[in-house]
């Protein structure tokens, strides 16, 4: 039984995956912020951002197959922004002023570099966290309990939703005698009538089970806290250092 969503969580096996879960989350957040803060328009900034993102992927130990899919997805998401450049220039300005092209590419380049790096860092961080790690990490951080509980259950229950969606698609394909794109279209149009009520029913039953098993009332740390070691402290300091460097680059404290 394949569950790509669940198989992705915790698939990384690098040194970062051995840190305390809360440190992985915090370091990932700091590096995500660093990638977004560093300026894409300067040579130092444009060098800093990919170095941070690629280094994080490497120390997280994200499998090559996942990294490739991730980068391809990122390129597909952010490269099209460059198509907007001609619209930003305007043909009269393009003829009159060659530097107008440089200016027109600034915004798409910003979006591309920040977006791709941010996505890579966030996904690599998620790849170091299994669903259990995510729960242990979130409950150790000062995040609102409801937010943590909802996020944990979203991750945990998503494979159920995937299978439910596959079952709906299979039933529609068989009963409607369609395949490929037509099935996809039917599934899409059936969302309000078929998929949504099923999902609501599913959510209702899970809510009953949570109530019955005392999920909300239980101590969120029942499964224990991970101990913080020297490597955890060094990692979080390095991540915060990167964020500090990105801030310095943004504020032009480093030319």
């Amino acid at each position, binding site marked *: 039984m394949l569950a790509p969503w669940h198989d992705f969580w915790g698939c990384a096996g690098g040194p970062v995956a051995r840190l305390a879960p809360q440190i992985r989350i915090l370091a990932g957040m700091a590096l995500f912020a660093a990638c977004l803060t560093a300026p894409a328009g300067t040579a130092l900034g444009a060098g800093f951002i990919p170095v941070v993102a690629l280094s994080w992927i490497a120390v997280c130990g994200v499998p090559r197959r996942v990294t490739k899919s991730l980068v391809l997805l990122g390129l597909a998401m952010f490269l099209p922004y460059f198509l907007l450049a001609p619209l930003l220039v305007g043909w009269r300005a393009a003829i009159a002023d060659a530097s107008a092209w440089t200016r027109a590419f600034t915004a798409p380049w910003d979006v591309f570099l920040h977006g791709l790096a941010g996505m890579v860092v966030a996904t690599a961080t998620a790849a170091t966290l299994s669903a259990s790690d995510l*729960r242990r990490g979130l409950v150790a951080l000062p995040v609102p309990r409801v937010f943590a509980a909802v996020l944990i259950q979203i991750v945990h229950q998503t494979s159920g939703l995937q299978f439910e969606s596959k079952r709906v698609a299979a039933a529609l394909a068989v009963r409607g005698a369609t395949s490929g794109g037509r099935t996809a279209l039917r599934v899409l149009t059936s969302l309000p009538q078929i998929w949504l009520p099923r999902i609501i029913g599913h959510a209702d039953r899970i809510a009953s089970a949570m*109530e019955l098993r005392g999920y909300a009332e239980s101590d969120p740390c029942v499964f224990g806290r991970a101990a913080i070691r020297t490597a955890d402290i060094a990692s979080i300091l390095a991540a915060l250092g990167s964020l500090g460097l990105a801030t310095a680059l943004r504020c032009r404290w480093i030319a």
Partner: protein
Amino acid sequence: MNSRHALAFEDVSVRYESGAVPVLSDVTFSISAGERTAILGLNGSGKTTLLMAAVGLVGHEGGISVCGIPVGRDTVAKVREKIGFLFNVPEDQLLFPLVIEDAAFGLLARGQARGEAYRRAGKALDDLGSGGLAGWPIHKLSHGQKLRVALAGALVTRPPLLLLDEPSAGLDPPGKKALSQVLEGLDAAILVASHDLEFVERLCRRFIAIDDGRIVYDGEDLSAVRRKWGMEDAQAGS
């Protein structure tokens, strides 16, 4: 209501909306400690609603008590501590990513130390023939495995009352036999909602049939239920 009863219903009615036709009407029965009873009924007869009412998941009129504790808003937490519950879709009650975490949760939530909780959860899984699944992620399990894990989570706290909703649904014949053998070895009172007559015949000594939310039979003769369902001929021919 007698405190020796693991579960007692007294003139219980359930309506999902006020003024609507009741899903359960004037249901009265009790189950003694250690007694194994089946609630039988066709689809939509009210079996699941009856179990839900017993744990306070649906409101009711009349009196329900579990081990002498009346089921009410203020007592529902105490009542639930006395009950192990198996939903009819077991995956709905698996709330944690790893099998051992899910099985141990009931003990951890009651303040049991982690090592001891995991040891007992491992034993509960072992007893159900699922000891090898302890480190597995829930989403990798088959239906039958999920059912056993859910049951381990319900049994691990050693509750005096087990409420099982369609526990044999989706199990193969050896799986059903193994499940009934495990349940037979427990001291707890068991109420099984099912329409699997073969399974409940193996497990239970008492049968309560409900139809349209009313008890229509309460006794030890399963053939009476078969006759009601028009299955006597099929049984004789098989």
